[in-house]
């Protein structure tokens, strides 16, 4: 199985995520075996793959929640290195939404959202709260601002998490299985928000198991297995004419149950 290469051609200015030959080891286990990916500004990319294929590891490498040991990752023109200044600069521009929401349980929804803008972007509280309210309205829960996360449903918590990421005004959004921990009837409210964001022109990299969402929203679908990218394709071709045997097997397993 060979990894599909994007090729070493020069990157364009519009390429906001550039990953070149990224390797990642957990001890002796190689989780990423030379991954190459370029994402343009405004593009929506969905990463699919069986569990253990390295897709979460890959997306977490993009904001240095995991450290890659080899290869280069350049986000918005800044390379991720050991330099803490680069890391914090990149994290400011990259918002992330987690599977388990990871809201801060001891802070109200409003404080959850405004903590980073006030302390990282150095905004005034008024400005942060104004923008936070705007985003809470956009994700449909402005009335929950003064509650604590534990008082909200899972879908509402995930929408707060999205609002928290967006209030930092990131250029890139990473979604790490944002609907996997939700009850079925709450999945759609989160997917609606994500669809809305994709239409609004955000650069999105999403790991998800929502095939409908991937088919409808993604501009490219990346299929990973065993720490490598197996196939990169448009949604239509990916679902209808997959080129790779592994992809066909994967699709037959998830679509025929």
């Amino acid at each position, binding site marked *: 199985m060979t990894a599909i290469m994007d090729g070493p051609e020069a990157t364009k200015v519009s390429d906001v995520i550039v990953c070149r030959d990224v390797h990642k080891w957990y001890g002796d286990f190689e989780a990423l075996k030379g991954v190459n990916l370029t994402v343009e500004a405004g593009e929506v990319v969905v990463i699919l793959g069986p569990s253990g294929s390295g897709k979460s590891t890959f997306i977490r490498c993009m904001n240095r929640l995991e450290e890659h040991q080899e290869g280069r990752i350049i986000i918005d023109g800044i390379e991720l290195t050991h330099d803490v200044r680069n890391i914090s600069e990149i994290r*400011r521009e990259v918002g992330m939404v987690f599977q388990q929401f990871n809201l801060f349980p001891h802070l109200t929804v409003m404080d959850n959202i405004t903590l980073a803008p006030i302390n990282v972007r150095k905004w005034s509280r008024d400005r942060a709260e104004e923008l936070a309210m705007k985003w809470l309205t956009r994700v449909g829960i402005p009335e929950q601002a003064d509650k604590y996360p534990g008082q909200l449903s899972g879908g509402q918590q995930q929408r707060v998490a999205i609002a928290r*990421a967006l209030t930092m005004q990131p250029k890139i959004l990473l979604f790490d299985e944002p609907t996997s921990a939700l009850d079925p009837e709450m999945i759609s409210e989160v997917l609606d928000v994500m669809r809305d964001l994709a239409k609004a022109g955000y650069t999105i990299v999403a790991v998800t198991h929502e095939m409908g969402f991937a088919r409808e929203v993604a501009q490219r679908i990346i299929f990973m297995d065993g720490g490598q990218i197996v196939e990169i394709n448009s949604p239509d071709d990916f679902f209808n004419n997959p080129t790779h045997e592994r992809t066909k097997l994967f699709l037959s397993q998830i679509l025929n149950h």
Partner: protein
Amino acid sequence: MASISTTTNKPPVQKRGTFSKRFNATYFLQDNITGSRGQLIWVIILTILTLGVLVQQLGNAPSRAWIIFGIWAVGVIGTVVGELFTLHIGATRWLKENMFNNVTNVLVTLLLALLLGIVCSGLWRWGVVNATFSPELTHPDVRTFDGASWGVLWGARKLLLTGLLGPEHNSRVIGWTLTILALWLMSFIGTRDSTRETTAGTFIRRVANTGWILSPFISYIFLAGLDYEAPFVDFRTLIVGTAIVTAIMGILWFFKVIQLNPVSTAAWVLAWPLSYLLWRTIAYVSFNAEIFSPIDPDKWGGLLLTVIFAIFVNILSFPIGILLALGRRADVQGIPWWLLWPVAILLTAWGLYTSTFGNCIGTPSFLCENVNLWATSRNGIERVISLWPLLIPLATWSFLRSFNGNFLQAFSVLFIEIIRGVPLITLLFMAIIMAPFFLPEDSQGLSNFWAVIVGYTIFTSSYMAELVRGGLQAIPNGQYEAADALGINTLQKYRFIILPQALRILIPPLAGAVIGTFKSSSLVALVGMIDLVGSTKAIIANSQWLGLRTELYVFMFVLYFLVSSVVSWYSRRLEDQSGLGVR
């Protein structure tokens, strides 16, 4: 338990340990007596024991035993009646739930009541009936010997409260006590549910919090006083202090623990000079107005010293413990081997050259004793010891192997583990005896008080560190990741997200640690400090109060118990209040 009286058409669902309106003898026996062979034997033994004590007491002290038995019997009858006819009133329901909820507990209640009667009657006779309360009646010549002489507490109040401190300082001790009580009161008012959300409540809370942070300094000014010697500013202290603070900041910055901007850099650099100048100004003013003349800390004693230990040690060791815990978990870039090994090899060679083989050529005289350890060694063991510089590569190797050159982690782990492996009393003796070794030769030495404070703080902070580490580990990884993903820096992450959650989890164990520190401070009596225990020993040895140990130890018991209860009550209150955000 309130649902017992509501019966339906269905057959009663019998829960273990509860009665039902439809009393079922089979279930009752199964639940209480015949459930298992062990239970049967247990109930039989308990019955025999209780009956034995009852019969014995009815013979020995009939009136008391009959009263206890009577009250118990009324309680049991009331409970049974209330249970069978659903006629429970508040008292019988309480009795059913707390005293008589099964046969075993019915028996245990009677047994314990009888035993308590024996203990309390003796205490009552000694402490109240036969006791004297006048300080004049405490002398061995006039004393009563079958009762307590409580007068000693009043007669020896000075030693008990402040030890050897002269009476001219009473006003300052009272002033300090009032200040601490005022802080406590403000904290209490500021955190009441009815006031905590109001502006005034917030203000009071802020004042109190600031006061608590400053309380070691306030206490120092009140109790130790301020000595003033010209010149107003000692430039050596000023520069060395600034250099140390700046160096710490630089190291933290280098290891990427903190990030710096012009404002924070200026704040760090100016922190020492500003506090130093403030300190000197206060000292100058107080010296000229003769408000807080210096008191030798070794004069403090009694309850005062015990309380000072508790406050100082707890307030000092808490932040140190947090830092040690953070250090132990610090994931910083280690010192690389290519930097460490050359230094280690050079040091080893230098040690072998100068110390083992006694060559001082080229080394400054104060660094070299000019003793050839190898040549002067008299046997094999000394010869091996003379090769001590070879330990340097060994230490370097194990440091790199165990900690990957992570200096912060190595320091914290070694500090915590070594200190936790030493008994407190050993540490206190070491603090007093060995403190002079660590001080410059020309200094006047550390007073015993400060030596003990240092030793005790080191001890407590290593325990606090492990508590805090437990709290930090209890925070889910997702919280760290969410903070990281938002671009929040390490300090802010701990300040706003991790520590608030961790400390809330830590309230019960921390309260335990505070109480433990307070009580264990009685050990300082063994190293010659006259704290509450020490002054009690001194009072007992005094010819006027010779042998009045029981009264004093009872007093001590009550005092320690009261303070510990207040702390644990306060921690429960704190816990209840801090749970607000978590549903």
